[in-house]
């Protein structure tokens, strides 16, 4: 492994970077292959590295998830793996029609307001025609009647629009779209359940090795290895995992970085 920061270059399986002007988060990011001002050359990290690749007292570790990732790094598999792949395939095949009814509902509501306005206008014109028939001139009656005819026509057009809008809110179409979403949700739940079971099975395989690592780890030893403090837990998961990429250590558990590298059986950068 090679680390270069601010013109300082360090190489080896256990690097002490405490005198190098760089912080742990930056080194961890560089190990993951992200763009940083420093250069780290190292083998590509495995997924478990995301969980325990940067060990510091303020970290949070979900021990079971990390342990399952450690099992994967060692090439272990779970009995649920085939089922998970099959359900994922089914999920990929589901086509979910869009439900974009917002505009339709807005048009529908607008048509409704327009209907009300026109209904009022028709009623008002009817009243006027009646009054004019009793006391108005022929000309005024004809004019009012023409206005009424036109308002009635407008009203029937809006009513047609409204029907069209309501048909677009078509229940069957929505039902199909929702059925697809419901199927997708069921499969997603199935994947989540299978993954939970797979994780439990992977954790069961490494439980003993993990407990031994917690007991052997420098620092406090808890009665329940799954209640270990985050640094102990992360180190123990790292010891049972096949880490490949360097672990960034911001903790005082080991006398020298080389001791950490040998205990973890992985390259180490002490920051």
């Amino acid at each position, binding site marked *: 492994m090679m680390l270069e920061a601010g013109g300082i270059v360090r190489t080896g399986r256990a690097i002490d970077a405490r005198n190098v002007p760089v912080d742990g988060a930056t080194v961890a990011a560089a190990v993951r292959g992200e763009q940083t001002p420093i250069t780290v050359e190292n083998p590509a990290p495995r997924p478990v590295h995301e969980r325990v690749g940067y060990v510091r007292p303020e970290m949070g570790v979900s021990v079971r998830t990390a342990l399952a990732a450690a099992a994967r790094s060692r090439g272990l598999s779970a009995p649920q793996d085939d089922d998970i792949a099959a359900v994922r395939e089914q999920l990929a095949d589901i086509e979910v029609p869009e439900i974009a009814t917002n505009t339709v509902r807005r048009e529908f509501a607008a048509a409704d307001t327009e209907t009300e306005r026109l209904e009022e206008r028709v009623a008002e014109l009817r009243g006027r025609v009646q009054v004019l028939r009793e006391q108005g001139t022929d000309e005024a009656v004809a004019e009012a009647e023409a206005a009424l005819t036109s308002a009635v026509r407008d009203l029937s057009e809006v009513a047609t629009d409204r029907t069209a809008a309501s048909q677009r809110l078509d229940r069957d179409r929505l039902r199909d779209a*929702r059925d697809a979403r419901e199927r*997708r*949700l069921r499969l997603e739940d199935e994947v*989540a359940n299978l993954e939970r079971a797979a994780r439990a099975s992977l954790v069961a395989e490494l439980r003993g090795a993990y407990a031994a690592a917690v007991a052997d780890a420098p620092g406090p030893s808890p009665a329940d290895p799954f209640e270990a403090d985050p640094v102990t837990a992360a180190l123990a998961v790292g010891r049972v995992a096949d880490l490949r990429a360097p672990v960034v250590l911001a903790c005082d558990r080991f006398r020298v970085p080389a001791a950490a590298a040998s205990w973890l059986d992985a390259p180490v950068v002490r920051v």
Partner: protein
Amino acid sequence: MLLVVTYSRAARRSLRNACRTHEDCVVRRFGRAVLLEASVFGAFLALRLRADHGGDVQVERTRPLNEFEDIPEEVREAATAYADRDHPSTPYAKFAAGTDHPDPDAMKAREL
């Protein structure tokens, strides 16, 4: 009331959180669906979920049913009579045939 149904894991999670935070607006919860109070705030919660999750959130308006007001008498009577039938395996269509009870297709064609 407002019926809110969710169709994705994320929408279901948001619905759960919203219900936990605003219990006073919740009439009844059913897994990934919920009945909210018919208040403007209930509508606000529903619309907020829909803004976040789009088509994965369905919102419907419901209202209580008074069968003595909303449902024709013969339908109510048919329901009671059918519940009281002699043979539990008799389907309704057969039960209604040749009686005064309404035919199922006729009922389907008739809007409430």
